[in-house]
């Protein structure tokens, strides 16, 4: 009998699965479409920005021909990728060869689902619209889970290519990802110990404003070491210079995408920029206050709620773009690590540091809470 009542939907609080209505689904689909479209657009212009940044840092002009300031360059690149001949090596595993880049793309977009992009929009008629696709209470673990899946795209593509260099690159990518995941997870733990919640929504709302009366409210001022470890590890997880050992041209030709051409190569390259954007958003969310900004309470009273939400989302985007630029500056400043240096840094420096940080955080929490 209780089972019957449950299936009639009389118990509404148990499971969100039953509480799904058509308007709820449509809302979430629209939101997801906007987020995915936005991420793709920003990643598109991140490729342009990368060229411009590298050009400025090397005293060149960068792309200038396609459109004003070369702004149409990403489109030209896309058309070029479409037009190239599609090659699948004859002794490769066809299915996995295609699966690799697709997986890289899907995983890159997946973590955007739990990011709170702004406070709820409250309309005049009492309805509200959440700017977060899924408010799950383990948001942080979800992000970590998606990060740990990120290596499959590279590994499968590399193995399926049936090429020695690709295989070596795939092995490097796997070893690197697993090593740096540990330090990444440990640095996240000290953050969780402090905030007492795994929900990204809670973590952001705890960083409200900029000054909470005694100290800065953003986590970067409370957990500077965890932030530093997280940042270094995200470079490694993104396979970006100075940790781009997986596609190190001077040793491995092109690494895991040596055998790829046309759109599949484009997918791999583009997935890197998407994950760079999403990672930047996550760093901003966890450590730099998410959508919070100094003086947000004053702004909230002045403008209507939907507009305020949009302002908050734009603030988050600004922070994320700042981190994307930081990723680019580092790439064009610091040379690539050697493989043993990479492993030493991960296992002998970052993991002990993260453990010490955890210990200090625990001691401080114990001291203040008594």
């Amino acid at each position, binding site marked *: 009998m209780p089972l019957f009542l449950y299936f009639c939907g009389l118990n509404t609080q148990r499971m969100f699965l*039953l509480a799904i209505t058509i308007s709820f689904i449509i809302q979430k689909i629209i939101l997801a479409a906007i987020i995915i479209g936005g991420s793709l657009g920003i990643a598109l212009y991140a490729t342009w920005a990368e060229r411009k940044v590298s050009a400025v840092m090397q005293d060149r002009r960068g792309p200038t021909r396609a459109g004003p300031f070369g702004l149409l360059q990403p489109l030209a690149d896309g058309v070029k990728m479409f037009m190239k001949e599609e090659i699948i090596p004859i002794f490769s595993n066809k299915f996995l060869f295609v699966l690799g880049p697709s997986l890289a793309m899907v995983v890159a977009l997946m973590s955007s689902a739990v990011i709170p992009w702004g406070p709820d929009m409250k309309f005049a008629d009492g309805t509200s619209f959440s700017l977060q696709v899924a408010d799950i209470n383990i948001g942080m673990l979800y992000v970590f889970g998606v990060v740990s899946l990120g290596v499959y795209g590279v590994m499968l593509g590399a193995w399926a290519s049936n090429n020695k260099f690709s295989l070596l690159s795939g092995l490097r990518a796997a070893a690197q990802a697993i090593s740096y995941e540990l330090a990444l997870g440990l640095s996240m733990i000290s953050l969780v110990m402090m905030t007492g919640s795994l929900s990204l929504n809670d973590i952001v709302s705890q960083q409200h404003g900029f000054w909470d009366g005694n100290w800065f409210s953003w986590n970067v001022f409370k957990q500077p070491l965890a932030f530093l470890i997280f940042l270094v590890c995200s470079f490694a997880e993104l396979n970006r210079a100075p940790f781009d050992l997986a596609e190190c041209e001077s040793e491995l030709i092109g690494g895991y995408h040596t055998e790829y051409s046309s759109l599949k190569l484009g997918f791999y390259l583009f997935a890197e920029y998407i994950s760079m954007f999403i990672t930047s958003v996550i760093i901003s969310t966890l450590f730099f206050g998410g959508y919070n900004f100094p003086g947000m309470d004053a702004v909230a009273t002045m403008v209507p709620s939907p507009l305020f939400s949009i302002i908050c989302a734009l603030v988050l985007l600004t922070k994320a773009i700042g981190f994307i630029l930081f990723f680019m500056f580092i790439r064009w400043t610091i040379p690539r690590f050697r493989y043993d240096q990479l492993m030493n840094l991960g296992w002998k420096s970052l993991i002990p540091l993260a453990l010490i940080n955890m210990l200090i955080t625990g001691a401080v929490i114990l001291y203040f809470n008594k």
Partner: protein
Amino acid sequence: MDIYQIICWILSIFTLGCAIGVIMSRSPINSVLFLILTFFSISAHYVMMNAQFLAIVNIIVYAGAIMVLFLFVLMLMNLNSDTEPQKNFLIQFAGVISGGALLLVFVAAIKSTFTGLEGKMIDLSQSTNIGLIQNLGTMLFKEYVFPFEIASVLFLSAMVGAVVIGKKDKQLSTTE
């Protein structure tokens, strides 16, 4: 049949299909990929039981770390169906015997699970929150703190053992 039951059926069929794929596929790489899919669908079952923490930890630990290492090793070994060594009769026989013994253990475990089913089922009519992280943490650190700590000591000793085995033998390398 409402939506919950339909999802449960589809998911169960998918899980079993993937699990059968693990043992039926000739290529070890495909086996590992099926195993990853199996872990994902088991996680989906956890989500259906409102145990989000277990679901995501299952993915992080098994799909995210252990299976990557499996793939890593398999890629290095480069096993193909045509290079697979022919196993002799005795080994096949031993395999059948040990597999049958394992099956017996599983059947016994399943049978003991089904006795007194009432107390063990998750009552979906009540809002079960035992799988959420707060409740799980409270349970682990209050009622089950001793087994929990013992397990952590076990893991630590396994880790130390792995480091000892993996360490280079200095004396051996100097004499060479």
